[in-house]
């Protein structure tokens, strides 16, 4: 992020200026030198710094996986802008250049094999390169700590969380610590649904399931989503890099209250995480005590009262 400030052209001292080799116009030469020096400093910083990966509207990622995905996205977007931009400019140029100006009949040519081979070959190379980088990133994003490694690992143990998506809410179980947090649409959207507290700097292994319909587990700042698919157990790892509040939401249409199926992730330090676990156990949020949420029974829906009753304060909760 500092590339711009660090990389701005450094003014040369007077001594440098007099020492500067001067061609015909001394002033011009000096200016040239100054820019060259500035560029020499700035280029590696700009290219090597984070601005090599413009964000193009996306999150830079708050997990290592999300950061890898972001870099791939950014690089592909840059490629897309260059290739698409050049093609677009070529179309625009053709339109302006060959706009009909006279009624003479243009030359009736049909094809040009070398050019056609060229514009078949170059795209093949481009997509081959994109595929190469895709596979590299995909392997990083998809890598999970295997079960055997988990039980024997020392130092930075893996945190297991089981996420159950249901109509219309989420349950987060921490099987190793007997903690369970859940919440559904009746809680209202104000606090952004149930919260999954996780430590940063440690590997978190999420096991994602659904017992009713398909849901989508999606956290924007993790640059990641995965279906909660009935009959399938999906496992993925998250390595959160910094503390923060990360809103998440169901992305796969799952029925009436799909729009309200919010949740959030709060990343805290491992020490805070441990004390959070203890306070949850103390306040009785244990796995046994949390009843299995009723699934497949849509709450009575009032077709007259507006859905946005949900967004209103507690008084309306009863109408669900």
């Amino acid at each position, binding site marked *: 992020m500092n590339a711009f400030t660090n990389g701005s052209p450094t003014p040369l001292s007077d001594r440098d200026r007099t020492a500067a080799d001067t061609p015909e116009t001394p002033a011009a030469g000096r200016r040239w030198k100054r820019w060259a020096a500035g560029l020499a400093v700035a280029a590696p910083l700009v290219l090597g710094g984070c601005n090599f990966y413009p964000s193009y509207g996306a999150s830079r990622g708050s997990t290592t996986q999300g950061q890898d995905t972001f870099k791939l996205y950014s690089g592909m977007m840059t490629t897309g802008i260059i290739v698409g931009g050049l093609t677009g400019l070529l179309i625009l140029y053709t339109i302006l250049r060959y706009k009909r100006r006279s009624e003479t009949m243009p030359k009736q040519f049909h*094809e040009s094999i070398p050019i056609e081979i060229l514009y078949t070959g170059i795209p093949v190379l481009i997509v081959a390169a*994109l595929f190469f980088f*895709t596979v590299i990133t995909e392997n990083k994003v998809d890598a999970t700590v295997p079960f055997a490694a988990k039980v024997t690992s020392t130092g930075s143990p893996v945190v297991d969380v089981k996420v159950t998506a249901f109509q219309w809410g989420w349950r987060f179980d921490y099987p190793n610590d007997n903690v369970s947090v859940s919440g559904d649409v009746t809680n209202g959207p104000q606090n952004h649904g149930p919260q999954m507290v996780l430590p940063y700097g440690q590997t978190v292994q999420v096991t994602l399931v659904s017992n009713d319909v398909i849901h989508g587990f999606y956290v924007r700042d993790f640059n990641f989503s995965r279906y909660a698919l009935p009959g399938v157990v999906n496992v993925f790892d998250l390595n959160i890099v910094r503390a923060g509040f990360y809103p998440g939401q169901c*992305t796969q249409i799952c029925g*009436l209250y799909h729009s309200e199926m919010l949740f959030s992730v709060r990343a805290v330090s491992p020490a805070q995480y441990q004390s959070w676990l203890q306070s949850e156990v103390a306040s009785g949020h244990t796995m046994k005590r949390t009843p299995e949420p009723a699934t497949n029974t849509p709450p009575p829906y009032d077709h007259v009262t507006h859905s946005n009753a949900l967004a209103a304060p507690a008084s309306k909760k009863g109408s669900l």
Partner: protein
Amino acid sequence: MTTTIESPDLIEPEEPGGPDGHGHGELAHEEAHEHHGPHGILNWLTSTDHKVIGKSYMITALVTFFLSGAMALVIRAQLANPTSSLVNFQTYNELFTMHGSLMLYLFAGPFAFGGLANYIVPLQVGAPDMAYPRLNALSYWLYLGGASMMTLSFVVAGGAASFGWVAYAPLSNSINSPGAGTDMWLMSLGLTGFSAIFTGVNLVATIFYLRAPGMTMFRVPIFSWNMLVTGILILIAFPVLFGAVVMLFCDRHFGTHIFSVQGGGVPVLWQHLFWFFGHPEVYILALPYFGIVTDIIPVFSRKPLFGYRGMVFATLSIAALSTGVWAHHMFTTGVVLLPFFSLLSYLIAVPTGIKFFNWIGTMWGGQVSFQTPMLFSMGFLFAFLMGGVTGVLLASPPVDFMTHDTYFVVAHFHQVLIGTTVFAGFAGFYFWYPKMFGRMLSERLGKLHFWFLFLGFWITFMPQYLLGLKGMPRRIADYLTTNGWTGLNQLSTVGAFIIGFSFLFFFVNLVSSWRKPVAAGDNPWDGGALEWFTSSPPPHHNFTHLPPIRSERPTWDYNHPEHRKDESHGDKRHREHEKETETVGASS
């Protein structure tokens, strides 16, 4: 059957039930039937003429388009502010499901293959009608039934289907979607599916067997080529959809458990079956529109198509690849082989790129004029370019993980779909309207339509990319003020209403062409394919005579004999072989 190539004299068209004596029996019968058949509205309703059926198809498809467009405006109005209360959740879910379903199943496909292609393909290949005219009529009536069924499902108890146009199991099962609306949705898919299959059969048979003497496969205009490939894709894809629909229906009503975990079934099987149909369907929707643009650009550039053979090759390879990429819609399920589907998806970019450069090459060195059909074609180029570039991004599983089911994808597929079905679709409409009705549309109103559409298009969909990247999921009816999505949503809504507004010019244009008709003549654009050789509108069996066919632009060759030498791909060897090919073409 053999024609004299060197003479510019006109030849007699192949008569129905012509010399080779088979394949046209039904046609001959139809002809007799038509001539003595009923008149007026009854004639229209019972007609088996491809031109009448084509027009019925187009009108019906346009009605569903405007209905569905109106729903889109309601959806956009709802999203214009975070806690809008225009419609409730249930209605919202029904609206986006019906919007998507009407657009894809009932407008985009049928408008292209039932409407434009039905009308134009027999003309382009010099045939008197489709190969199976009665099957063609049946196709329309099934389609009309399907369209009515889908639209009417809004009024049944429980409302219309509300699970999105993809109907993922188990949301679409009888527990989660108990209403009759879902069954009507399924039946509508069954009916329109069969109507598509019948039209597909007709297109393939017509293009393979009813070409005029001299029209070898490599002289078939690209629009018809693309319709041939579309027809083949329909025959591959739609039976799978029908199978899936029947299975889901059995799950809903006859106690099977094909898609339910509880009974030992596999929900994700629905996705495999659906997308095995769904991705080829994407190209069933796109190829006809590519064909339209490919026919329009040479006409307005006064040049032959650049890279005709490359274009055919590109279309064939897109079609082949499109049957092997279905699971790129399922990257986030966690149960598909990512690299395989990613690689094949990437590869589709190559033939698509070839098409782009062929279109540019066609304009290159030409005398390009920008009448309404050409303007819309240019709109297509830019829209599809933008949608195509973001499509390449989505072929990458990690990038798909970060954007799947967000507005990024909504923006992507609308740019692709509107580029094809709306920009290219209306390009075709403006292009062929004079042929179909013998009257011109106003250039001024056409251009106004274009510019407002073009403006509205970018304002509607560019902000949606950003919304997706800022985390807005698709298919949600409301959002939080704290999400920070409000401004971009409002911009998008403004754009949508500009798109809606642009169609007023279209309506005025239609009405004024009926109030104050301007005669079109046979060939208002100096077009090259055979449809421009006959009168506007064409007579009952299309042609009274045909020009000799020695390139993909027989009408152009006939009207510009001085440039004929450059034709036949400028290849002397090729011209010597011409006579031989001619005979082969005629007897096929």
